[in-house]
């Protein structure tokens, strides 16, 4: 009985609050659009990382996609994110170094973009300097040798655009545009870039049979006495094909670019860069953080006989004295065949990932 009186009182109280309500309330109801998690991911690895304050929505993803391909984010309206992250190249650049809007080259190879929500440590860039995809997206827009813009100018330009204010309203419930909302939208779109339909994925799902050369290449990949690639690049139970961690893989004796070491200030981290995923190598040349290797053969040769010793080289880089584990030509060919089986043609042709 008491309970009913209490509830009644509360109801009265709440309804009385509405008496003065003259505010015009605009319904804010973006449509939730959770990531479509591939079976091979759901079965094998932990769920993706989605920030609680930036859920995936239909409107947010569409806005992020439009922004990703729109040169409006650059100071002189000539370059978009896609200029250096092209869908047909698994969202990287075929140039070793990308030129920004002023024609100035950077010193690192553009990173391919896919399966980013499964970067559990949430550290982005080759040196891991940005925590979270939203924070990462702040950087290229204001980098003087990339889009060379300012965020206040971006906000102003988008605000005076004929379409964007309404699109932000639909996605985020406000038409007041700022860097936070722009990067949230970009991150939502980028999290949809999921690659999980390579030949090797289909092999694991029992849909196709790999060639003997591809299968032997996988054994070389998994053999500690041969490729020993799996310690940093995953295995059949980890479809990311990267540990998203930072290693010195024996490229140089001294470091012009200190990588992780510059960020942490720890000399033991000098020369360490993030392990990239081995998915989509067919489309992502050139390779390494500085794009020094033009072909996959160059990469394999590096690990086989080109390793260079340095104080921070990873202990997993064995036989450094001999430059590496000395794979035979046929082993190299098989390893290459396996690596290429991780490329996902459906991913680069997905119409949802192209310019709207």
């Amino acid at each position, binding site marked *: 009985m008491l309970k009913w009186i209490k509830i009644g009182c509360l109801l009265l109280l709440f309804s009385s609050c509405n008496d003065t309500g003259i505010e015009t309330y605009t319904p804010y109801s973006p449509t939730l659009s959770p990531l479509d998690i591939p079976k091979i991911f759901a079965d094998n690895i*932990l769920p993706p990382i989605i920030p609680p304050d930036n859920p995936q929505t239909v409107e947010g993803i569409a806005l992020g996609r439009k922004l990703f391909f729109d040169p409006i984010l650059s100071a002189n309206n000539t370059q978009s994110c896609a200029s250096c992250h092209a869908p047909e190249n698994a969202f990287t650049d075929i140039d070793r170094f990308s030129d920004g809007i002023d024609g100035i080259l950077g010193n690192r190879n553009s990173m391919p973009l896919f399966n980013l929500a499964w970067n559990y440590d949430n550290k982005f860039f080759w040196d891991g300097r940005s925590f979270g995809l939203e924070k990462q997206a702040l950087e290229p827009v204001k980098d003087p040798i990339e889009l060379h813009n300012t965020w206040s100018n971006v906000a102003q330009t988008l605000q005076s655009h004929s379409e964007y204010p309404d699109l932000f309203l639909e996605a985020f419930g406000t038409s007041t545009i700022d860097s936070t909302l722009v990067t949230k939208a970009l991150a939502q779109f980028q999290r949809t870039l999921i690659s999980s339909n390579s030949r090797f994925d289909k092999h694991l799902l029992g849909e196709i049979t790999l060639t003997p050369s591809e299968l032997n290449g996988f054994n070389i990949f998994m053999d*500690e*006495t041969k490729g020993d690639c799996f310690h940093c690049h995953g295995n059949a139970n*980890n479809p990311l094909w990267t540990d998203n961690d930072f290693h010195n893989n024996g490229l140089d004796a001294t470091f012009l670019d200190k990588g992780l070491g510059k960020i942490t200030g720890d000399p033991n981290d000098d020369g360490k860069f993030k392990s990239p995923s081995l998915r989509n190598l067919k489309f992502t040349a050139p390779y390494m953080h500085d794009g020094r290797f033009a072909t996959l053969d160059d990469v394999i040769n590096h690990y086989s006989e080109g390793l260079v010793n340095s104080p921070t080289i990873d202990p997993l880089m064995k036989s450094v004295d001999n430059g590496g584990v000395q794979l035979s030509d046929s082993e190299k060919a098989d390893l290459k065949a396996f690596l290429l089986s991780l490329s996902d043609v459906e991913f680069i042709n997905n119409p949802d990932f192209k310019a709207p």
Partner: protein
Amino acid sequence: MKPLKKIILLILFITFIGCDNKDDDNTEPAPTFGTLTINFNHYWDGEKVTSADFDNTVFANANGDKLTISKLRYLISNLTLHQANGTSTKLSDYYLVDLAGLNSNTSITISDVPIANFSNATFTFGFNETDNVDGAYTDLNSASWNWPEMLGGGYHFMQFEGKYGATGTENPYAYHMGTARVSPGVFEQNYIDVTLDGFTTTGDATLEIKMNIDEWFKNPNTWDLNVYDTPLMPNYDAQIMMRQNGRTVFRLGELN
């Protein structure tokens, strides 16, 4: 409006007072369950080792080789406390201990553990045959903790890495332990059943489990890194020696 507010406050007040009705009984029984925190601490010849020592501190092993450590992670499973009356309390299915800086995992806290006199604590270093199922654990897969199928599959038990030798001419070692391969397709279980001394808790407690890292190189096999550095995963003799040396690596530490 105002009288309504007063009525609500009054009702809430009465409700709260009404709840406070168990204070008459002064003979509260002593708690029988508490929270137990287990810290995995690491030592080299009695000196504590942390990730701050990684790549910096030079240790000398029983064979006289100088070495540094850059990675140490290992798997503990079926951690269980046993009482003399036969009661056993399983604290965790498995736990991946990792000393590395940002992602370090060296402590577990378990609530509702009996407060009791425990005759011993047991755990498996690695996974036993039943638990060591290839690809079965998504968190371990995400950590790329898998052991290659050609070596019996399942998971690593330990990854212990670094460099050894004179400054300037160091070589890497990768003391990785898991299922031993006798010959292609023939495998031997290589996990270690560890039993620690007993202890008595009187309330919430913190227990230290010590890994004496130097023991991996010492007892009964004096480990020669110049012979056994890398690759060791497919090396049957190395795997078996790891198991033998691992038996004396863990000790019960302090109880607080």
